[in-house]
């Protein structure tokens, strides 16, 4: 009896304690909204993003005031409530997906290119072109935690291919210096910075595999890539796919390819070739080139459907009106379509049933069934570029 009374009293106390808080701020409490199917679409020219729902296939709201978001990318907090948008003008914006409002914003550099969130969700790192270097912020309120200059021989280098890796660590490459660096925050907010070594000429982007073990930097200045095995102690750099374009004429590249969402499918890896209208297939165990799949143009994104069965590929200008779909086991292009000019980015829904494609010059997002390749719906958007859905919150390196 006495024990039950006590429990009841405690329960009542809890209700009483929480009730005034709820009553005091009814306007501030965010709408109750599941976030697992939410995402944002960058509206490149107008400094805005769309908050979208990929289950309802609809736009919830437009969020403005993000500055120059050409080439913007985004990452998510582990609870899928907040998106961190990395703008071209150095702006870092934290968006609340529940309220559809900007929760915090800083302009942290002159010219930035991307970012990453630490595995514990506490640190947001931004890579900068101008001035080169990495700045790391508290995910909670965007206060500066660490400023890591990328100085090599007295010159600042542009930072590319910044990714998170387990243990509060970030990896990045330096475009001019051709180096790969590791920033380790496992000991607190003062990072240990380590040069892992020389990658090669002009690394343009980097990616990490879903286990966080392998980091690969793509090279623009030469045919090849650099591989870091983070399970080795100390991690070492190894050159892979050397001279993959040997004997072939190098074609002009009108847009830098991207390495994103490490395209591992059926045990092998798929990358855009640089200066060749091909997708490279690399053996997942030996890291040797298996074959080259001829495609429609210079590939920009080679994205695996989440199950890995198909790869969706888009292209640099003047072929940026086209998408091709490659069948992973047969390694052949099985479908080609032309949704419209400025086909910039593709993002799969969580388990890959549908894919959203931004068609910049048509001011439209097209949604396709990934099995029939039929168009399901279109949504208006102002010059859309990157599309980012919340399942990225739970994937290493995204």
């Amino acid at each position: 009896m006495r024990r039950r009374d006590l429990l009841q009293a405690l329960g009542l106390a809890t209700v009483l304690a929480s009730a005034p808080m709820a009553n005091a701020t009814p306007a501030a409490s965010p709408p109750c909204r599941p976030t697992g199917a939410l995402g944002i679409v960058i509206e490149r020219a107008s400094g805005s993003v769309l908050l979208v729902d990929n289950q309802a296939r609809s736009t919830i709201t437009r969020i403005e005031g993000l500055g120059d978001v050409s080439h913007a990318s985004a990452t998510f907090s582990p609870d899928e409530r907040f998106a961190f948008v990395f703008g071209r003008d150095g702006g870092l914006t934290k968006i609340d997906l529940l309220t559809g409002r900007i929760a915090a914003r800083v302009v942290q550099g002159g010219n930035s290119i991307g970012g990453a969130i630490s595995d514990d969700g506490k640190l947001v790192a931004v890579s900068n072109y101008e001035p080169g270097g990495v700045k790391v912020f508290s995910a909670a309120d965007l206060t500066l935690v660490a400023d890591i200059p990328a100085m090599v021989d007295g010159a600042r280098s542009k930072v590319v291919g910044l990714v998170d890796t387990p243990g509060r660590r970030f990896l990045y490459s330096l475009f001019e210096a051709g180096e790969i660096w590791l920033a380790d925050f496992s000991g607190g907010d003062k990072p240990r910075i380590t040069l892992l070594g020389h990658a090669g000429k002009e690394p343009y982007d980097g990616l990490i595999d879903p286990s966080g073990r392998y980091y690969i930097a793509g090279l623009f200045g030469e045919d090849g890539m650099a591989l870091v095995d983070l399970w080795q102690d100390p991690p070492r750099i190894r050159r892979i796919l050397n001279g993959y374009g040997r004997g072939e004429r190098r074609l002009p590249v009108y847009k830098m390819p991207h390495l994103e969402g490490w395209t591992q499918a059926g045990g092998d890896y798929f990358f855009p070739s640089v200066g060749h209208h091909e997708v490279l297939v690399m053996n997942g165990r030996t890291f040797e080139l298996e074959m080259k799949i001829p495609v429609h143009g210079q590939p920009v994104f080679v994205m695996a459907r989440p199950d890995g069965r198909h790869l969706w590929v888009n292209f640099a200008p003047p072929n940026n009106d086209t998408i091709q779909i490659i069948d992973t086991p047969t390694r052949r292009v099985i479908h080609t379509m032309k949704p419209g000019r400025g086909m910039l980015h593709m993002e799969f829904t969580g388990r890959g049933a549908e894919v959203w494609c931004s068609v910049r010059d048509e001011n439209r997002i097209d949604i396709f069934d990934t099995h029939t390749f039929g168009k399901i719906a279109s949504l208006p958007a102002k010059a859309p570029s990157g599309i980012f859905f919340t399942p990225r919150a739970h994937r290493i390196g995204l």
Partner: protein
Amino acid sequence: MRKLSWNVRRVRLRKRLMIFGALCALFPLASSIALPARPVPATTSKPIDELVRLVRQDCGSCHGLTLKGGLGKPLLPENLAGRDADTLAQIILDGIPGTPMPPWRGILAENDALWIARKLKEGFPDAAP
């Protein structure tokens, strides 16, 4: 006679010098006025709005939508002041070997490249809405 003759010569010389000086003074002035007023090519192979979009979007993927620079150098008038339009047009057409700047010949005609070069030096128009 001789004195008069000298005076006449002196006056003539002064006149000639004045004309020469005026010409010297006018010439750079005239040329500096004439250069910016030099009309952009009357014809471009592609429609103007397509060239504007190409520069803002495609060049912009390296040089930034606002042309303030990115992986590529900034392309604002103050950055290009030291280069003439013909040189810039050649860079657009032939690229810069050994760097990511590709040759745009084949996508852009020479008059397109010259139009872009001149407009970049003036301050490039915004993309049509």
